[in-house]
């Protein structure tokens, strides 16, 4: 059995930052494995540990820099990795859900996995749409926002819980092959061990350009264009207490006393 995990390197913005052009200035960004993908990788690796002959392959759309993140997933137990990138992608300033799904679908078609896991959303763009769009392109079944997975490999069914709003979970049976988007909290992602990190250096990491996947630049075309990015004007009118921790804590304490939360 083969599990394909979509893995994204996401950008986090530092506390103080500036925007240049249509994005946060590169110098204020830090990169990391997408939180939700970390859970997806863990779910795949646990499945491979609990069953015989399960191969875990990761796929990433990202520049060379993202290999650090990919190695992290390999260190946690994925067997090999695929990265999709080329000059056309470097030049594209906005990658639509549609384009991403198309790129990932091309890889999935070559790999022919029995199960695809992706994160519910990415921490930076937060579109929350790639997994389901990918499933549709592949004509596979899917389930979004999965926080419990009980896989029946023989019976080709994934028994999942989908986490809905308000503390309610939906119990759903999904025929495999399927794409499941994984919610945080489904498991406890492991830390990469030193041994794992060493081994990850030896694991295969293939880079595919658009042409290798039988695609061309037209895949990247989109009717959606990002036209501005800005810091939203604060809607809030919070009173900010200033001073040393002792002073600010004192202000808050006084406030809580005035409110009658605590006496004395």
């Amino acid at each position, binding site marked *: 059995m083969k599990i394909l995990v979509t893995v994204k390197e996401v950008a*986090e*913005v530092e*506390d103080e930052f500036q925007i240049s052009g249509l994005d*946060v200035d590169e110098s204020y960004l830090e990169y990391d494995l997408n939180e939700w993908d970390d859970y997806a990788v863990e779910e795949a690796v646990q499945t491979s540990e609990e069953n015989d002959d399960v191969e875990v392959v990761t796929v990433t759309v990202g520049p060379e820099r993202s290999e650090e993140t990919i190695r992290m997933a390999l260190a946690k137990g994925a067997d090999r990795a695929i990265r999709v990138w080329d000059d056309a992608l470097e030049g594209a300033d*906005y990658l*639509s*859900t*549609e384009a991403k*799904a198309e790129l990932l679908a091309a890889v999935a078609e070559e790999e022919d996995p029995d199960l695809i896991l992706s994160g519910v959303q990415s*921490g*930076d763009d*937060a*579109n929350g*749409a*790639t997994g*389901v*769009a990918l499933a*549709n*392109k592949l004509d596979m*079944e*899917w*389930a*979004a*926002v999965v926080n419990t997975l009980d896989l029946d490999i023989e019976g080709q069914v994934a028994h999942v*819980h989908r986490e*809905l*709003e308000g*503390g*309610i*979970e*939906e*119990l759903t*049976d999904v*025929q495999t092959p399927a794409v499941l988007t994984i919610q945080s*909290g489904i498991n406890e992602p492991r830390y990469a061990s030193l041994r794992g990190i060493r081994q990850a250096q030896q694991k295969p990491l293939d880079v595919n350009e658009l042409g290798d996947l039988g695609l061309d630049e037209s895949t990247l075309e*989109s*009717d*959606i*264009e*990002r036209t501005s*990015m*800005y*810091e*939203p004007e*604060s809607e809030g009118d*919070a*009173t*900010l*207490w200033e001073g040393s*921790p*002792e002073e*600010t*804590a*004192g*202000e*808050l*304490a006084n406030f809580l006393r005035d409110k009658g*939360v*605590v006496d*004395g």
Partner: protein
Amino acid sequence: MTDVLAITEHRRGELRDPSFEVITAGRELADEVGGDLHLGVISGDVDAFAEDLNRDGVDAIHTVDYGEEFNHDVYAQAIPQLFEASSASILLMPNTVNGLDYAPAVADDLDLPLVTDAVGLEGGDVTEIIREQYGGKVEATYDIDSEAFAVTVRPAEWPKAEGDGDAEVAAADVDIDEDAIGSEVTGFEEVGGGDVDITEADVLVSIGRGIEEEENLPLVEELADALGATLSSSRPIVDNGWLPKNRQVGQSGKVVTPDVYIAIGISGAVQHVAGMKGADTIVAINTDPNAPIYDLADYGIVDDLFDVVPELIEEFGGEAPNL
């Protein structure tokens, strides 16, 4: 004419709030582009739902009487047919957990550009959509250079539609291919019961990822004790297993309405805010002055929680634990 089709949502026999919010968002957009607003109601007691949804500004309601509960395979088949039958060119869906379970598939089938989680929509020659990025620290605008497109709208960003409408209600002529249904909803489960009911608390001390380690939790426990408050948290604390699920505030946790909510080391992501924005007074302690929580807070301390919280504990005669 550019008509808008908005899809509604229900669960266990009840329409959910986003159903009425998409009416407001859809009406606004339909007015800007000069078209009608159609609603799609799929599965469940569609006639009763249609009656309730028939509010001011709705022109037509199309019902699909198939199955009881949400099933994405049914929605994914029905919506494209409704879209074509209503000759709409804009498809509006709620950015809910279920919305995200069918919207990308439907947009793909209809070959529509898709933008999710819109917090603002402006029609015109091109439609401009506003959305948040990087955990709410920035906003971005997206132009859609196509008359036809799909968009999901963030819950609770638009007011709920009210007032009686005189929409035409009709059963839609939709075929559902049973063989194409590869998923089956078998039930529901409620989670998060237990000893403490954070929805009952007057004062909540709520902790987020800023606490860094489980070993640091006694610090906020001590503060909650000193204040006679109840301890709650954002999602990562529960995901890590540091607090039980019944302490989680937010979209997938509990909705709380205390007199005072003290958010410590919590950024204020939209899914968290969904659970606590109804608090009477919100106090934030966070090192990041740009954290979205400050948009909501009434009072704030932009500082390190590890410096401020021990001082607070002392203020109330407690003793900060040695971490």
